[in-house]
Protein backbone atom coordinates (compact mmCIF):
# COMPACT_ATOMS: atom_id res chain seq x y z
CA UNK A 1 0.00 0.00 0.00
CA UNK A 2 2.72 2.45 0.97
CA UNK A 3 4.73 1.40 -2.06
CA UNK A 4 1.65 1.96 -4.19
CA UNK A 5 1.29 5.51 -2.88
CA UNK A 6 4.97 6.15 -3.47
CA UNK A 7 4.59 5.05 -7.07
CA UNK A 8 1.76 7.51 -7.59
CA UNK A 9 3.66 10.34 -6.00
CA UNK A 10 6.59 9.74 -8.32
CA UNK A 11 10.10 8.65 -7.73
CA UNK A 12 11.18 8.72 -4.11
CA UNK A 13 14.51 9.84 -2.76
CA UNK A 14 16.86 7.01 -1.72
CA UNK A 15 16.07 5.89 1.82
CA UNK A 16 18.59 7.15 4.34
CA UNK A 17 19.40 3.69 5.66
CA UNK A 18 20.81 2.73 2.28
CA UNK A 19 22.98 5.82 2.33
CA UNK A 20 24.14 4.89 5.84
CA UNK A 21 24.98 1.35 4.80
CA UNK A 22 26.89 2.39 1.71
CA UNK A 23 28.88 5.03 3.56
CA UNK A 24 29.69 2.58 6.33
CA UNK A 25 30.83 -0.13 3.97
CA UNK A 26 33.16 2.30 2.27
CA UNK A 27 34.63 3.76 5.43
CA UNK A 28 35.18 0.28 6.88
CA UNK A 29 37.17 -0.79 3.83
CA UNK A 30 39.56 2.00 4.73
CA UNK A 31 39.47 1.39 8.47
CA UNK A 32 40.18 -2.29 8.04
CA UNK A 33 43.01 -1.56 5.62
CA UNK A 34 44.93 0.11 8.43
CA UNK A 35 47.16 -2.88 8.87
CA UNK A 36 50.29 -3.07 10.97
CA UNK A 37 53.78 -2.59 9.51
CA UNK A 38 54.50 -6.01 10.97
CA UNK A 39 51.92 -7.64 8.72
CA UNK A 40 53.32 -5.85 5.70
CA UNK A 41 56.84 -7.11 6.52
CA UNK A 42 55.58 -10.70 6.79
CA UNK A 43 53.73 -10.33 3.50
CA UNK A 44 56.91 -9.00 1.86
CA UNK A 45 58.94 -11.99 3.04
CA UNK A 46 56.33 -14.43 1.79
CA UNK A 47 56.16 -12.67 -1.57
CA UNK A 48 59.93 -12.83 -1.95
CA UNK A 49 59.90 -16.53 -1.14
CA UNK A 50 57.29 -17.30 -3.78
CA UNK A 51 58.63 -15.05 -6.52
CA UNK A 52 62.23 -16.24 -6.21
CA UNK A 53 61.02 -19.67 -7.31
CA UNK A 54 60.53 -18.15 -10.71
CA UNK A 55 62.86 -15.17 -11.05
CA UNK A 56 65.66 -13.29 -9.42
CA UNK A 57 64.46 -10.05 -7.91
CA UNK A 58 66.08 -7.09 -6.24
CA UNK A 59 64.91 -7.73 -2.71
CA UNK A 60 66.16 -4.41 -1.35
CA UNK A 61 64.26 -2.38 -3.90
CA UNK A 62 61.04 -4.29 -3.37
CA UNK A 63 58.14 -2.12 -2.32
CA UNK A 64 54.78 -3.29 -1.01
CA UNK A 65 52.07 -0.94 0.11
CA UNK A 66 48.33 -0.55 0.47
CA UNK A 67 46.89 2.31 -1.54
CA UNK A 68 43.62 3.87 -0.48
CA UNK A 69 41.54 5.88 -2.84
CA UNK A 70 37.94 6.96 -2.61
CA UNK A 71 36.40 3.78 -3.90
CA UNK A 72 38.76 0.95 -3.10
CA UNK A 73 41.89 -0.32 -1.46
CA UNK A 74 44.64 -1.89 -3.57
CA UNK A 75 47.76 -3.83 -2.69
CA UNK A 76 50.50 -2.37 -4.85
CA UNK A 77 53.82 -4.18 -5.20
CA UNK A 78 56.79 -2.86 -7.11
CA UNK A 79 59.22 -5.72 -7.62
CA UNK A 80 62.28 -5.10 -9.82
CA UNK A 81 63.23 -8.28 -11.69
CA UNK A 82 66.93 -8.89 -12.24
CA UNK A 83 66.60 -11.98 -14.39
CA UNK A 84 64.43 -14.99 -14.99
CA UNK A 85 65.47 -18.33 -13.62
CA UNK A 86 66.96 -20.62 -16.23
CA UNK A 87 66.32 -23.79 -14.34
CA UNK A 88 62.56 -23.37 -14.24
CA UNK A 89 60.93 -26.30 -15.97
CA UNK A 90 57.47 -25.89 -17.30
CA UNK A 91 55.95 -29.20 -16.36
CA UNK A 92 52.76 -28.54 -18.23
CA UNK A 93 54.53 -27.84 -21.53
Amino acid sequence: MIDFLRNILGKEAPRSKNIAKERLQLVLVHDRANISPHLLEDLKEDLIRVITNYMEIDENALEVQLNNDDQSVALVANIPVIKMKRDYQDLRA
Partner: protein
Amino acid sequence: MGEVIVITSGKGGVGKTTTTANIGTGLAAQGKKVVLIDTDIGLRNLDVVMGLENRIVYDLVDVTQGNCRLKQALIKDKRFEGLFLLPAAQTKDKNAVSADDMKKLCEELREEFDYIIVDCPAGIEQGFKNAIAGADRAIVVTTPEVSAVRDADRIIGLLEANNLKRPKLVINRLRADMVKRGDMMNIDDMIDILAIELLGVVPEDEQIVISTNKGEPAVLDMNSQAGQAYRNITKRVMNQEVPLLNLDYETGIVKKLKRLLGLKG
Protein backbone atom coordinates in the same frame (compact mmCIF):
# COMPACT_ATOMS: atom_id res chain seq x y z
CA MET B 1 34.53 -22.43 37.35
CA GLY B 2 32.80 -19.23 36.36
CA GLU B 3 32.90 -17.47 33.04
CA VAL B 4 34.19 -13.93 32.46
CA ILE B 5 32.22 -11.89 29.90
CA VAL B 6 33.24 -8.38 28.90
CA ILE B 7 30.63 -5.91 27.60
CA THR B 8 32.21 -3.41 25.23
CA SER B 9 31.35 -1.04 22.36
CA GLY B 10 34.07 1.44 21.45
CA LYS B 11 31.68 4.36 21.21
CA GLY B 12 30.31 5.82 24.40
CA GLY B 13 26.63 6.19 25.18
CA VAL B 14 25.35 3.18 23.25
CA GLY B 15 24.27 1.29 26.37
CA LYS B 16 27.20 -0.76 27.68
CA THR B 17 26.36 -0.09 31.31
CA THR B 18 22.63 -0.66 30.83
CA THR B 19 23.40 -3.93 29.03
CA THR B 20 25.77 -5.02 31.80
CA ALA B 21 23.23 -4.25 34.51
CA ASN B 22 20.42 -6.05 32.70
CA ILE B 23 22.34 -9.17 31.68
CA GLY B 24 23.83 -9.43 35.17
CA THR B 25 20.50 -8.97 36.90
CA GLY B 26 18.86 -11.32 34.40
CA LEU B 27 21.39 -14.05 35.16
CA ALA B 28 20.90 -13.57 38.90
CA ALA B 29 17.12 -13.81 38.38
CA GLN B 30 17.81 -17.18 36.77
CA GLY B 31 19.46 -18.26 40.00
CA LYS B 32 23.08 -17.77 38.93
CA LYS B 33 25.81 -16.34 41.14
CA VAL B 34 26.92 -13.17 39.40
CA VAL B 35 29.38 -10.36 40.01
CA LEU B 36 29.42 -7.15 37.95
CA ILE B 37 32.69 -5.23 37.66
CA ASP B 38 32.67 -1.56 36.66
CA THR B 39 36.08 -0.82 35.10
CA ASP B 40 35.28 2.73 34.01
CA ILE B 41 37.55 4.39 36.54
CA GLY B 42 36.70 8.06 37.10
CA LEU B 43 33.35 7.72 35.34
CA ARG B 44 31.61 5.26 37.62
CA ASN B 45 28.01 4.57 36.64
CA LEU B 46 27.06 0.93 37.02
CA ASP B 47 26.33 1.61 40.70
CA VAL B 48 23.59 4.17 39.93
CA VAL B 49 22.07 2.06 37.16
CA MET B 50 21.87 -0.81 39.67
CA GLY B 51 20.57 1.51 42.40
CA LEU B 52 23.46 0.61 44.70
CA GLU B 53 25.27 3.95 44.84
CA ASN B 54 24.62 4.49 48.55
CA ARG B 55 26.27 1.27 49.62
CA ILE B 56 29.75 1.81 48.27
CA VAL B 57 32.60 1.69 50.77
CA TYR B 58 35.52 0.23 48.86
CA ASP B 59 36.13 0.04 45.11
CA LEU B 60 38.09 -1.76 42.39
CA VAL B 61 41.28 0.22 43.03
CA ASP B 62 41.08 -0.48 46.77
CA VAL B 63 41.05 -4.17 45.92
CA THR B 64 43.94 -4.13 43.44
CA GLN B 65 46.04 -1.95 45.75
CA GLY B 66 45.35 -4.15 48.74
CA ASN B 67 43.52 -1.53 50.82
CA CYS B 68 40.81 -4.07 51.53
CA ARG B 69 39.94 -7.69 50.92
CA LEU B 70 37.99 -8.52 47.77
CA LYS B 71 35.00 -9.69 49.83
CA GLN B 72 34.78 -6.31 51.58
CA ALA B 73 34.49 -4.41 48.31
CA LEU B 74 31.71 -6.56 46.83
CA ILE B 75 28.35 -4.84 47.26
CA LYS B 76 25.40 -7.13 47.67
CA ASP B 77 22.40 -6.38 45.45
CA LYS B 78 19.08 -5.39 47.06
CA ARG B 79 17.02 -7.84 45.03
CA PHE B 80 19.04 -11.00 44.52
CA GLU B 81 21.05 -13.12 46.94
CA GLY B 82 23.60 -14.14 44.33
CA LEU B 83 24.24 -10.73 42.73
CA PHE B 84 27.20 -8.49 43.62
CA LEU B 85 28.80 -5.31 42.30
CA LEU B 86 32.45 -4.33 42.35
CA PRO B 87 32.29 -0.56 41.72
CA ALA B 88 34.89 1.49 39.85
CA ALA B 89 36.95 4.06 41.71
CA GLN B 90 35.64 7.55 41.14
CA THR B 91 38.52 9.73 42.28
CA LYS B 92 41.66 7.69 41.75
CA ASP B 93 44.18 7.56 38.94
CA LYS B 94 42.95 5.83 35.81
CA ASN B 95 46.15 3.82 35.62
CA ALA B 96 45.79 2.41 39.11
CA VAL B 97 44.60 -0.92 37.67
CA SER B 98 46.75 -2.96 35.27
CA ALA B 99 45.86 -5.76 32.87
CA ASP B 100 47.60 -8.21 35.20
CA ASP B 101 45.53 -6.93 38.14
CA MET B 102 42.37 -7.61 36.16
CA LYS B 103 43.49 -11.10 35.16
CA LYS B 104 44.25 -11.97 38.78
CA LEU B 105 40.97 -10.53 39.98
CA CYS B 106 38.95 -12.45 37.39
CA GLU B 107 40.73 -15.68 38.30
CA GLU B 108 39.86 -15.18 41.93
CA LEU B 109 36.20 -14.35 41.24
CA ARG B 110 35.86 -17.34 38.92
CA GLU B 111 36.22 -19.64 41.91
CA GLU B 112 33.07 -18.35 43.53
CA PHE B 113 30.78 -16.99 40.80
CA ASP B 114 29.05 -18.50 37.77
CA TYR B 115 29.36 -15.30 35.77
CA ILE B 116 31.69 -12.31 36.03
CA ILE B 117 30.34 -9.48 33.84
CA VAL B 118 32.85 -6.72 33.11
CA ASP B 119 31.55 -3.29 32.07
CA CYS B 120 34.22 -1.81 29.81
CA PRO B 121 34.98 1.92 29.46
CA ALA B 122 34.45 3.60 26.08
CA GLY B 123 37.48 3.99 23.86
CA ILE B 124 40.34 1.72 22.83
CA GLU B 125 43.02 2.84 25.27
CA GLN B 126 44.46 1.21 28.36
CA GLY B 127 41.10 1.07 30.15
CA PHE B 128 39.72 -1.08 27.35
CA LYS B 129 42.79 -3.33 27.33
CA ASN B 130 42.54 -3.80 31.10
CA ALA B 131 38.86 -4.60 30.97
CA ILE B 132 39.27 -7.35 28.39
CA ALA B 133 42.43 -8.83 29.92
CA GLY B 134 40.75 -11.53 31.97
CA ALA B 135 37.74 -12.21 29.74
CA ASP B 136 36.70 -15.51 28.15
CA ARG B 137 34.23 -14.00 25.76
CA ALA B 138 32.99 -10.59 24.65
CA ILE B 139 29.70 -8.94 23.87
CA VAL B 140 29.78 -5.88 21.59
CA VAL B 141 26.97 -3.34 21.98
CA THR B 142 26.03 -1.03 19.14
CA THR B 143 23.13 1.18 18.07
CA PRO B 144 21.88 1.45 14.46
CA GLU B 145 23.98 4.53 13.72
CA VAL B 146 26.98 4.81 11.42
CA SER B 147 29.27 6.11 14.17
CA ALA B 148 28.41 3.32 16.61
CA VAL B 149 28.66 0.58 13.98
CA ARG B 150 32.00 1.89 12.76
CA ASP B 151 33.42 1.87 16.28
CA ALA B 152 31.96 -1.58 16.89
CA ASP B 153 33.87 -2.82 13.84
CA ARG B 154 37.10 -1.42 15.24
CA ILE B 155 36.44 -3.03 18.62
CA ILE B 156 35.70 -6.41 17.02
CA GLY B 157 39.08 -6.22 15.27
CA LEU B 158 40.85 -5.40 18.53
CA LEU B 159 39.03 -8.15 20.45
CA GLU B 160 40.02 -10.73 17.87
CA ALA B 161 43.61 -9.48 17.90
CA ASN B 162 43.54 -10.05 21.66
CA ASN B 163 42.31 -13.61 21.31
CA LEU B 164 38.68 -12.92 22.11
CA LYS B 165 37.41 -14.69 19.04
CA ARG B 166 33.83 -14.62 17.86
CA PRO B 167 32.39 -11.79 19.97
CA LYS B 168 28.62 -11.50 19.85
CA LEU B 169 26.53 -8.45 18.98
CA VAL B 170 23.76 -6.69 20.88
CA ILE B 171 21.91 -4.12 18.79
CA ASN B 172 20.47 -1.52 21.13
CA ARG B 173 17.77 1.12 20.65
CA LEU B 174 16.36 -0.24 17.43
CA ARG B 175 13.26 1.62 16.23
CA ALA B 176 11.03 -0.69 14.26
CA ASP B 177 9.02 2.23 12.84
CA MET B 178 12.14 3.86 11.39
CA VAL B 179 13.43 0.52 10.08
CA LYS B 180 10.10 -0.04 8.40
CA ARG B 181 10.20 3.22 6.48
CA GLY B 182 13.83 2.67 5.52
CA ASP B 183 15.36 5.37 7.68
CA MET B 184 17.28 3.11 10.02
CA MET B 185 19.61 0.21 9.28
CA ASN B 186 17.94 -3.09 10.01
CA ILE B 187 19.35 -6.12 11.81
CA ASP B 188 20.52 -7.79 8.60
CA ASP B 189 22.30 -4.64 7.44
CA MET B 190 24.36 -4.53 10.62
CA ILE B 191 25.09 -8.26 10.74
CA ASP B 192 26.10 -8.04 7.10
CA ILE B 193 28.53 -5.20 7.78
CA LEU B 194 30.03 -6.45 11.04
CA ALA B 195 30.00 -10.16 10.15
CA ILE B 196 29.50 -11.42 13.70
CA GLU B 197 26.85 -13.47 15.41
CA LEU B 198 23.80 -11.71 16.83
CA LEU B 199 23.11 -12.13 20.53
CA GLY B 200 20.01 -9.98 20.65
CA VAL B 201 18.15 -6.83 19.71
CA VAL B 202 16.81 -4.33 22.24
CA PRO B 203 14.12 -1.95 20.99
CA GLU B 204 14.14 1.73 21.89
CA ASP B 205 11.95 1.84 24.97
CA GLU B 206 11.00 4.66 27.34
CA GLN B 207 10.96 2.13 30.14
CA ILE B 208 14.77 2.04 30.04
CA VAL B 209 14.91 5.72 31.05
CA ILE B 210 12.30 5.15 33.73
CA SER B 211 14.02 2.08 35.14
CA THR B 212 17.39 3.82 35.14
CA ASN B 213 15.79 6.76 36.95
CA LYS B 214 14.70 4.34 39.65
CA GLY B 215 17.84 2.25 39.68
CA GLU B 216 15.92 -0.90 38.81
CA PRO B 217 17.14 -2.81 35.76
CA ALA B 218 14.42 -3.14 33.07
CA VAL B 219 15.01 -6.89 32.80
CA LEU B 220 12.81 -7.22 35.90
CA ASP B 221 9.98 -5.18 34.36
CA MET B 222 7.51 -7.65 32.87
CA ASN B 223 5.65 -4.88 31.00
CA SER B 224 8.62 -3.49 29.13
CA GLN B 225 9.59 -4.66 25.65
CA ALA B 226 13.25 -3.86 26.33
CA GLY B 227 12.94 -5.93 29.50
CA GLN B 228 11.70 -8.90 27.47
CA ALA B 229 14.57 -8.40 25.02
CA TYR B 230 17.06 -8.48 27.91
CA ARG B 231 15.45 -11.60 29.38
CA ASN B 232 15.92 -13.29 26.01
CA ILE B 233 19.52 -12.09 25.77
CA THR B 234 20.18 -13.44 29.25
CA LYS B 235 18.96 -16.88 28.22
CA ARG B 236 21.13 -16.79 25.11
CA VAL B 237 24.13 -15.92 27.31
CA MET B 238 23.29 -19.14 29.15
CA ASN B 239 23.39 -20.90 25.77
CA GLN B 240 19.65 -21.45 25.56
CA GLU B 241 17.99 -20.99 22.22
CA VAL B 242 15.38 -18.23 22.19
CA PRO B 243 13.78 -16.81 19.03
CA LEU B 244 14.22 -13.09 18.28
CA LEU B 245 11.54 -10.74 19.58
CA ASN B 246 8.98 -9.69 17.03
CA LEU B 247 9.46 -5.93 17.03
CA ASP B 248 6.27 -5.05 15.26
CA TYR B 249 4.95 -1.64 16.12
CA GLU B 250 1.78 -1.85 14.12
CA THR B 251 -1.43 -1.73 16.04
CA GLY B 252 -3.88 -4.57 15.98
CA ILE B 253 -6.33 -2.73 13.75
CA VAL B 254 -3.78 -1.96 11.05
CA LYS B 255 -2.68 -5.57 11.09
CA LYS B 256 -6.22 -6.84 10.77
CA LEU B 257 -6.92 -4.42 7.92
CA LYS B 258 -3.83 -5.57 6.07
CA ARG B 259 -4.81 -9.16 6.54
CA LEU B 260 -8.27 -8.36 5.17
CA LEU B 261 -6.70 -6.75 2.12
CA GLY B 262 -4.43 -9.74 1.68
CA LEU B 263 -1.28 -7.81 2.52
CA LYS B 264 1.16 -9.46 4.83
CA GLY B 265 1.88 -7.44 7.95
